């Protein structure tokens, strides 16, 4: 019995180690989105340099050309943006009061070619002191470029039709 339990524990440890050392693309992409959320968050009263560093980090998650499709009440935008445009857009956003970005629910589907992926994500943005948080459903398309999953397309999704 003890041997059986020990063997089971060793097998579980082996599986865990395997998953840690060789994570699935879904897990890699989900981890990347968690890093993106941290980079997009801004501390209240942060100066220009930390904000610039954060914006550049955000830009690093995108490909050189990104298709943006935003369809929200009062704001429609369909454009192709370069990585620099994204950095500038993040910097231009009024986040002087601070901003916390989270992706609480991430659902990643990797394509059969293992080179493309789609992520359905719930974006939660909260400005300190404000009662309502912003919740938006979004769809990201990613492509594996030089071994790194980069975002090539961003679009908002209407949860209710």
């Amino acid at each position: 019995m003890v041997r059986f339990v020990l063997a089971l524990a060793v097998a579980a440890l082996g599986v865990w180690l395997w998953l840690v050392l060789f994570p699935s693309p879904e897990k890699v992409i989900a981890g990347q989105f968690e890093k993106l959320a941290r980079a997009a968050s801004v501390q209240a009263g942060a100066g220009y340099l930390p904000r610039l560093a954060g914006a550049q980090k955000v830009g690093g998650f995108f490909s050189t050309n990104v298709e943006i499709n935003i369809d929200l009440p009062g704001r429609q935008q369909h454009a192709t943006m370069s990585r620099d445009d994204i950095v500038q857009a993040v910097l231009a956003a009024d986040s002087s009061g601070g901003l916390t970005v989270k992706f609480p629910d991430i659902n990643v589907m990797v394509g059969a070619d293992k080179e493309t992926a789609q992520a359905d994500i719930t974006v939660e943005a909260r400005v300190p002191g404000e009662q309502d948080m912003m919740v938006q459903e979004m769809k990201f398309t990613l492509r594996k470029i030089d071994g790194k999953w980069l975002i090539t397309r961003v679009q908002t999704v209407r949860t209710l039709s």
Partner: protein
Amino acid sequence: MIDQDQPNTRPGRPRLGGWLRIALIGRNPNVTLARAAILVATCVVVFKFVLLPIRVEGVSMLPAYKDKSLNFVNRLAYLRHEPRRGDVVGLRLGGTNALYRTPSVMYMKRIVGLPGETVAFADGHLLINGTALDEPYVNGPCDWNCAPVTVNPNQYFVVGDNRSMPRDYHVFGQAKKEQIVGKVLF
């Protein structure tokens, strides 16, 4: 005469340390461990798959559901019957399209329109098939206007109770039945 320094060794009366031990781990530690495991498993199953604990964020369901209030979503509410008008439901967003996944964030809305019905807003009044719906849960002025929409089959028209906020800031519309996580309990 009782010697205070001597432990009480009379049979059937455990010492103070014994009582504490019994209170903490029971007379039979193995049985207690099994009970604790069953309790933990039951809690995990109940609070993950049956009654989801939720915390209300925001003002869109005022006055019935206040910001930061706690509640539960009953995931089994619609096993035996279809959602009904007036039910307050939790709705899943995109990150949890897979039905087995438990969403971290949900929209909380009230069902006002059923499949096949026509829903419209006229000067703040909600019209179902052209007739104003009595909504005692709505409190506050509303000036919304919205052209009639016919609710698609297998979809429900949902809206928040707080109609005094601008329409553009309020998420409402048709939700697929699969999006409904469950009925808000209280």
